[in-house]
Each structure stands twice: as structure tokens, then as C-alpha cells.
């Protein structure tokens, strides 16, 4: 695999730096994908895409100059390099010589998804449909989606970086609607679940129907849900997708662009004790086969595990090249972009709390009256303050140390610093779920995860 010959890359980077700059970079990408969905028992919307393009970036001081084109032929690359160079005001600088792009150590793919017949993917969706419908008579609608993507990425820069990455991701998602007619009208609930990773079709070899069954189980459970309580309550947050709380309320505030603009409540707090000494958290773009993992980031820096919180202390921010240079540190391999059409920005990869010693049952047993938030329908945070809101898509009451009735309509409202301080128990059952994270108009796959975590007190906005 080679998208751009090193000799051409070297000339493009040199051309981009014709009017100066501290860093010149060429990013080339070939991306191909296929997706198909099943809805109302019918396989529909099969779609396939193939794009090839490149972008050129020049960084000079605090400013970035950027341009992108569809196509990676010499004429297109030279044209975009010229256009970017036009915007720069400075003296010409001489880039380092470039070798052939070294392919990063990737993540294992046993069965290439594009090599699997489309009919088998459709069959997978039908199996999921059957499993969800078999879960209960009150299941009224099942929607299942399959998606695969392969991105070949090459990054060359004026400091001699010549790196390549071959990224394959697949994801199966299920959404199930249940309905029960009652005296005060129908009650309709929704449950979702997903399975995905930086991996091949083998990820779906073992019991893919379980994804749909799990979504159905959630939607069926919610039919019996009572209104959520409101007020200040202890909250046990579930493992896997429960980690979206850490991602939103803490992780975004650790991204170095937000820190630099003092748009983060975590700015200036390195070394501070923000949580109980039992709390450790990582951003880990190397974790094998995980949804948010890559071989290199989108600036050619090898991905790595960064300890962001160690024994309750804030230990690191998440850096791309530009912000790392400004702080005199190394990039942590978090310079990510949605595609060749986007500038890299510091982004999380897989962010999660390290497992502790407790069991989920022990965490729950310690709560007299509280909320068990298993998964969230989504969340939003203002990184500048750390204020967050999460809709609880699957939640239960905890009464007398036991999980009792399911609740609906609960939201968690609070602040990242407050939530970190409130952590008073961590279980050992770490798992990581597949999220899509949006920032600065770019969406990238991000792994969110944690073991079960207990927060001593948080504001629950309920419907009761």
C-alpha cells in the first residue's frame, strides 16, 4: 500500500513551506466503506462509498494554514500546497528529507469485512431482527445497522515523519421499540445496544444476535419504569457506556486546545488532587482492537496510553503536535481528524477509569436510596465550566442496598470537578463501549468505558 511516493511528498511539503512556516505536513487518505440497515423486517439502504483526498498544513507560530482537495495526483497536491503557501508570510525553510511511509503497528484483522459477501451481512441483520422479536411480544419495532470502514492514511511532515496506518472498523447497532397499551394510553419505550471495534468481521462471529436481544431487553424493562426521582442522590454508574460521563465531564476538559484557551475548568490544575486516591484514569489509543484505537494518530505520532489521573491527581493533558510544542512537551498521540478534509485537533481515543477492587454488588449495597444509571442516551458538557447533563436511557432505583424498579426520564446534572470528588467506589469490571464524539464540527470514533463507579451524591433531574 502506498498512496503518495516519498519523493513526491517531499516536494509537496517543500512547496507548502515556500513562504515559511515551522511545520509543513501532507496528509493523504483513501477511505472506503459499506453500510446496510434493517428496519421493519426489511433490509434496506445498502450504501457504499470511496473517497481519496489529501490535505496540506503549514504551522507558523500560533497559526495554522490548511487546504484540502479530492484526489491525490501530483497536480492536485501541488496546487493545494501552493494555495496554502500563499497565505503564509515568512521566510522559506528547508524541510527534512523523507523516507517511505512506515506502516504503523496496527490492530489485528482476522477476516477482512470487504471480503465478506454482502448477503452474509444482510443475514446477520435478519438474525438480529429475529432475536429481538423473540425477546417479548411487546417488541413492536426493530432497527439494526451494520457498518464497515477502511481508512488508509499517510502522514509526511517537514520534521521527517513518514508514517502510514491501515484502519479497519466495524460496528453493529440495534434499536428496539416496545409498546404496551394501558388505561391512560399507550406506553412506548426504546432500547439500544452496539458492538464495534478497530477489528475485522470476526468481531461479529460470536453471537451477534446478543446485541439485538440486549437492546430488546432494555426496551422491555422500561415498559415497567416508574418516574425518576429528583434531588441530590447517590448514583452508581454502570460499566461500558456509563463511561460517557468521564468522557464528557472530564475528558473534553483535558484536551489541550481547551486548556490553552482557559476554556477548561482543568486548566492550571496539573498535580492537583481532584479525586480520591483510589481513582486513576487513562486515555489509551493503543488498546488492542478497541473502537477508539489506531496505530498512529492523524499527525503520524504513535498512539499510546496516557495516564490523565493517577491516584486522584491530575497528571496530564491530551496533546496534538501544535499544543505540545507550545507547552514544551511531547504529543500524546491525540491529534485526530475526521478525514483529510479536517484540521487535526486534540481528541480522546479510548478514555476510561482504571478498575478497582470492589464488585458492582458491593457498590450498590452501600446505597440506601439512589439511582443506578446503566447507560446514557447521550450527554453534553460545557468544557469551560465542566457543567454537564446526561439523559439516563437505562436506569433503576436503588432502595435499601438493592436494585429495584426501572426508572425513565432521569437526567444527571452536575459538574466534572464535583463528580470526580464524589467518586467513592470503583469496581473491577472494566469494559469499553463504542461512541461517536463530536467536536469542532468533526466526528470521530471514541471508546468510552469504565468499571462500575459510585458517586456519593449528584443532582438527579427526574420526572417525579
Amino acid at each position, binding site marked *: 500500500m502506498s498512496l503518495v511516493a516519498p519523493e513526491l511528498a517531499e516536494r509537496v511539503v517543500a512547496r507548502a513551506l515556500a513562504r515559511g512556516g515551522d511545520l509543513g505536513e501532507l496528509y493523504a487518505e483513501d477511505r472506503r466503506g459499506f453500510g446496510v440497515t434493517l428496519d421493519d423486517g426489511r433490509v434496506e439502504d445498502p450504501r457504499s462509498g470511496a473517497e481519496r483526498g489529501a490535505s496540506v498544513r503549514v504551522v507558523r507560530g500560533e497559526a495554522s494554514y490548511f487546504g484540502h482537495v479530492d484526489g491525490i495526483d501530483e497536480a492536485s497536491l501541488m496546487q493545494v500546497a501552493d494555495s496554502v503557501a500563499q497565505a503564509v508570510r515568512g521566510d522559506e525553510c528547508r524541510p527534512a528529507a523523507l523516507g517511505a511511509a512506515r506502516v504503523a503497528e496496527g490492530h489485528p484483522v482476522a477476516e477482512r469485512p470487504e471480503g465478506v459477501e454482502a448477503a452474509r451481512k444482510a443475514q446477520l441483520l435478519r438474525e438480529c431482527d429475529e432475536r429481538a422479536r423473540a425477546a417479548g411480544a411487546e417488541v413492536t419495532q426493530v432497527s439494526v445497522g451494520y457498518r464497515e470502514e477502511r481508512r488508509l492514511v499517510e502522514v509526511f511532515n517537514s520534521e521527517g515523519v513518514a508514517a502510514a496506518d491501515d484502519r479497519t472498523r466495524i460496528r453493529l447497532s440495534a434499536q428496539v421499540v416496545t409498546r404496551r397499551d394501558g388505561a391512560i394510553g399507550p406506553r412506548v419505550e426504546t432500547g439500544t445496544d452496539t458492538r464495534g471495534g478497530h477489528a475485522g468481521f470476526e468481531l461479529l462471529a460470536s453471537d451477534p444476535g446478543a446485541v439485538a436481544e440486549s437492546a430488546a431487553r432494555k426496551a422491555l424493562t422500561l415498559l415497567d419504569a416508574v418516574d425518576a426521582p429528583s434531588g441530590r442522590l447517590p448514583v452508581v454508574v454502570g460499566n461500558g457506556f456509563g463511561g460517557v460521563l468521564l468522557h464528557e465531564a472530564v475528558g473534553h476538559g483535558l484536551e489541550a486546545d481547551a486548556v490553552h484557551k482557559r476554556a477548561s475548568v482543568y486548566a492550571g490544575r496539573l498535580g492537583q488532587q481532584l479525586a480520591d486516591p483510589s481513582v486513576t484514569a487513562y486515555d489509551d489509543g493503543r488498546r488492542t482492537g478497541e473502537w477508539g484505537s489506531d496505530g498512529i494518530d492523524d499527525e503520524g505520532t504513535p498512539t499510546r496510553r496516557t495516564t490523565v489521573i493517577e491516584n486522584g491527581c491530575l497528571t496530564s493533558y491530551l496533546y496534538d503536535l501544535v499544543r505540545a510544542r507550545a507547552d514544551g512537551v511531547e504529543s500524546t498521540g491525540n491529534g485526530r481528524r475526521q478525514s483529510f478534509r479536517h484540521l487535526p485537533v486534540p481528541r480522546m481515543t479510548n478514555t476510561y477509569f482504571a478498575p478497582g477492587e470492589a464488585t458492582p454488588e458491593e457498590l450498590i449495597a452501600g446505597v440506601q436510596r439512589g439511582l443506578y444509571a446503566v447507560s446514557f442516551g447521550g450527554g453534553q458538557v460545557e468544557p469551560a465550566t*465542566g457543567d454537564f447533563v446526561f439523559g439516563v436511557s437505562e436506569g433503576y432505583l436503588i432502595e435499601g442496598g438493592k436494585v429495584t424498579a426501572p426508572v425513565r426520564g432521569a437526567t444527571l446534572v452536575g459538574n466534572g470537578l464535583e463528580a470526580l470528588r464524589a467518586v467513592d467506589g470503583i469496581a473491577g469490571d472494566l469494559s469499553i463501549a463504542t461512541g461517536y464524539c463530536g467536536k469542532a464540527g468533526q466526528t470521530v470514533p471514541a471508546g468510552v468505558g469504565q468499571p462500575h463507579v459510585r458517586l456519593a451524591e449528584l443532582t438527579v433531574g427526574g420526572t417525579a
Partner: protein
Amino acid sequence: MSSDLEALARSGVEAALSAGAGEAEAWCEDTTGRKIRVYGGAVESLSDSGGRGIGIRAFLDGRVGYAYGTDLGPEGLRSIASTAASVAAVADPDEHAGLPEAFGATAVEGLESAAMAGFSTERKVELALAVERAARSRPGVSQVENAVYSDSEGAAAIANSRGFSASYAATSAWVYASAFAGEGQDLMTGLGVGLARDPGALDPEAIGVEAAERAVALAGARRPASRRCPVVLDTFVAASFAGFIGAMLSADSVQRGRSLFAGRQGEEVADSSFVLTDEGCDPDGPASAPFDGEGSPTRRTPLIDGGRLAGFLYDTRTARKDARETTANAGRSYRTAPSVGATNLLVQPGGSTLPELFARAGDGLYVTDVAGLHSGVNPVSGTFSVGASGRLIEGGELGAPVREITIAGDLVGMLRDVVAVGSEGRWVPLAGSVRAAPMLIGEMTMSGS
């Protein structure tokens, strides 16, 4: 440029027919754009973008396949077209799928501004810097996180196997700024935004001041006590709710049973003061175009009128399913197959100024920001619980700033409880394209401490 693009779309259709499609349609786009982000009085990033691509829909015995790509040479087109035809085989047949019966273009004035070409990069940078200065110079502003100028010039073309082809060109320019007031955990943010067909029609001073004032108004916000009270939604928040309601009025959501409006056509779903229309041919609408993603001419569609649910948004497939005509709401880009969505949503302004709405509210809450609307609303039941910040209303006047509250209710209940719609309508291009106005709601549950 447009005629080249139409020819390209026609070639795409021919390639799909040669690859075995019974019928076919191709959509092409060619756009260029510039984005300038300034920070601290200097350029932080300057981006040039250019893109050209095609998406092809192939119909084979009631099955539909889609493929897109950016390789537009003869070989590339053949590959995209044959992929569209071959992936169709995996789909189940759909009796309602197919090309529309009628095609055409509605005349929409002013989509393209000739003035766009006259603006140099330097003037665009200066515009972004002027927005930042306007925000920064306001007392109480501690920081301007972002001032971003962005524009695009582009053309789109469609062709299909019934012999129809058409194209149009459009320009747009927009600016947003995000300002902070206060520091640390007391920091509050405010957003200012403006949108036009070219940079000359943007008012940098007004956009900067808006960001600053929205942030400063929240400085020192605290969590208030829980209660039920009248609520005034500001224009941005009203636009967020209207956008969500528009999504729920998609016939696709309705037919799949994923909308609270399913089966309620003609029912009373709002107070008569809340009038909602979709208008794809409004000359001022950011999402306006002569035709939709299937080549149906754009039009005006009443959605909520006289307090009743007047209609849904349709594309060809969903319209056939309900035995009616499309409303030309097939949205698309070359990377996505057509799917039902709102174009420009218009909330009809009422007769009350904002101070009059506060006076009528008496004691209540003025909401200037909601968080988590899409995760906090159950689309099927319409119940919601979302995070909010804003100001208390005390004795008919604006009072103390508040944050970390949740407001809860159900959407139809809220719409029926609309007491008055404000007179100051404006475009809010934040989540989709909505022209909204502030709204006074009789009573909502506000949960604080």
C-alpha cells in the same frame, strides 16, 4: 460550472443504466470554502477547502442501492455506478421506492451573491477580528474563545433516467463567536451568530456583542430552588425545540412509529399562537434550493396551523406509502442517499416584545440555553428533561442568573401551553435552519436544588 456538473450527473445516470440498473439518479456537488478562526487578535487557522463528488442511486426491481465517490473520471464513474447497482441486490424490494413522478425547479431569488467573489481573504480575516474585538471590548467579558468566519460557494446538479436534469449555485457566509464571562467554575459562555449570502451582509459588531451579552447576562449564576413556573424560551432555545419538532414531523419517523405525532394528523397539538411551516423556497432561508434531493420542486408546507397538526414532511417513498404527494423534503449530499428532513422551519412571530413576555410571565424563568435536547427528549412519548441555564424573571423583570437546572415536561403539553410568541423573529442557523421567536410557556417544571 453548473452545466458541467449537470453533464457529469447525466454521465453517472448512463453509467448506472449500463451497469444494469432499471432506473437511476445521480447527484453531484462542487464546492469551495474558506474558514478563518481568530484568537487573541491573530489568525489561529485559515483553511481552504475544495470538493467535488457524485452519489448514484440505482433502482433494480424495487431494490435500491447507493454508492458515492470522488473519482470522477470515466473509470471512476463506471466503478461508482456498478457498485450502486450491485449493492442493490442485497436490499429487500420496496414497492414504494422509485423516482418521483414530477420534477422541476422553483425559482428562488438570491441564492447566489455575486458580491462573494469580491471579498479578499484579508477582508474576511478582518471581519472575524472585528467580531472578536466587539465581544472582547464588552465589560465583564473575560475571554473570547473563538471567533470563526466560514463561507462556501458551490453548485449542485441532479439528473435521472426519466430525462430530467437541473442544477443551481448558492453562496453562504457565516460567523460565530463564543465569549466567556467570569473565571474558573463561575465561568459562563455566550454564543453570537450571523449568517448571510456574502460577508458584506454580516454585522460583526452585532455578532460580537451578542456573544458578549449572552455570557455577561449569566455571570455569577447559581442553582435556584425547584418549582413550577411560567417560562420564557429565548429565540435560540425556541429554535432548538422547533428543530426537534420538525424532525419528529418527518413522515419517515411517523411511518416507522418513532414520532409522538404518529396518527395525530388534524388533532389539536398546540396553542393556536404556535404556527410552524416548512419552506424550502424562502429566499432568505439558509437551506433554500430550487429542488430537493430527488428533483422535486421546493415549496411551502404548513405543519402546525390553527393549533392543529396540519401535515408531515414527505419524500417520494414516504408519500407513496401514504398515497399522497411529496412535499419536496428529500435532503441529501452526494455522500448520503435522499432522506426526509426539514428544509427551513419557520415559527410565525407573534405580537409581544420580549419585555412584554417577561411582564406577562410575572415570576418565572427565562431560558437562554438548553443542553442535551436530543438525548433528553423521548421522541416517541415526547417527554423531556433537559439541562438549562438563564435568568429568573422577578416581578416581570429579568432577575438573578441561574444554571445547572433541568426543565421537564412533554412536548405537546408544552406547545398547548404556549401563551404568546414574541414579535422578534430571526434565523438561528445552529441546529438545522430555523426562523424562530421567543415564546412564553404557561408553566413548566424547573428542578434546581
